[in-house]
């Protein structure tokens, strides 16, 4: 679902960019997971058909953003958070919910580690990005990559980012509209709108 490992940008900018992904589980663990979730959240599964629902009426399938995430933990799907504090609070909520789902956080590794330890958790497995190899001269400019890599599946084309950024600079399009346009193309919903606005502000 997500290639959120390779999000690019300076550390200051990445301090406002955390993606929390609650995973589905493989077939082998499915029965045990289902039983556990049914005990924890009665009504989550209806008439024997597995219906993945997010708590308190949130819809499935798209990334959930900070304001909504305060309502409750997501059982399956992605949440985009804009600060370390929000991450810590959300992870605490997930820990207490004890859904049994694997949870992965993309973001500054040391910040994530610090949050986990503050709430009595520790990393289980870590993945580092060693960067981009090969014909890097074919890549677009760094500020464009900061935008395009926020869509895990590369659905936001570099030329489009360049065009909309130019439209914003010329006053032909509000920056909020440009960011919404980009976010709409990211079907997993992990495009960080708040960070994108800041990137446009810096250009």
């Amino acid at each position: 679902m997500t290639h959120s490992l390779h999000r690019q940008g300076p550390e200051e900018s990445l301090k406002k960019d955390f993606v929390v992904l609650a995973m589905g589980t493989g077939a082998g663990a499915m029965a045990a997971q289902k039983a556990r979730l049914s005990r924890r959240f009665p009504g989550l599964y209806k008439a024997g058909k597995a219906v993945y629902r997010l708590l308190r009426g949130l819809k499935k399938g798209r990334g959930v953003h900070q304001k909504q995430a305060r309502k409750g933990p997501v059982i399956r799907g992605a949440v985009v958070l804009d600060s370390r504090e929000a991450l810590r609070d959300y992870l605490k909520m997930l820990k207490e919910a004890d859904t049994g789902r694997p949870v992965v956080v993309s973001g500054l590794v040391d910040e994530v580690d610090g949050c986990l330890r503050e709430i009595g958790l520790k990393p289980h497995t870590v993945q580092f990005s060693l960067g981009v190899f090969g014909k890097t001269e074919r890549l677009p400019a760094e500020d464009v990559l900061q935008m395009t890599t926020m869509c895990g599946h590369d659905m936001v084309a570099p030329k489009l980012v360049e065009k909309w950024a130019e439209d914003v600079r010329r006053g032909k399009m509000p920056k909020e509209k440009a960011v919404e346009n980009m976010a709409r193309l990211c079907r997993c919903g992990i495009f960080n709108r708040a960070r994108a606005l800041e990137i446009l502000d810096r250009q």
Partner: protein
Amino acid sequence: MRIDEEKCTGCRLCIPYCCGGAIAEVEGRNKCAVDQDLCVECYVCRWSGCCPQDAFEETELEWPRSVRHTFSAVKAAFSDTRMDGRGTKEMKTNDITGRFRLGEVGFTVDVGRPGVGTTFADVEKIAMAVAEAGEGIEGGVSFVEDNPTTRLMKDGKSGKFRDDVRGERILSCILEFKIEEEGLMKVIRALRAVAEEVDTVFSVGCISRCREDGTVPVRAMLDEAGVFYRPNGKVNVGLGRPLSPY
């Protein structure tokens, strides 16, 4: 994907939407067309609604062209793994699966990413290079079976791909494999070398199961070898149950 010439007015609004750079104006005709060699069948042009005339039409994708869609669209499921095209669970479920254990290093190589695209011919070059790097290490390089890219290989060891898919162009795919820790630098050196031989880019991820105290063995090894890694990464926080005993 193709453009219905009858409907196209040549407005060119669609051109920057194309992830593969496959849409261009047809010279002198005031129409746009899709270059079928460059098109990765991601369907962004169609579902984005960028065409005011709704001129984009999906074409029937037969094998092997169908792998373009599987490895480029977001919600296309790969029949063997039943996961969305490029998707793989790699370390994301490691607390349940134990796929990567202490003493091992996992790698993900996103070929074509970010945003350049690739063919399986280049994917094969990279896969064969890392397979060769694993020679002499106990167990060698082991490509993860539950991964759509591995399923297109002739076998899980040599890194060779099926002849019929080699020429297909896709947005990206993920080579996923693991090796004993002692092979870490051999693989990284092989990736650096093959980077000179491919006509694309690839993004490399390096996976390590943490020790009991939460420290990351591979981090010290990368530091000692002076290998660059970004400050941001992915962390499995260990909330999956049942917890892997590994």
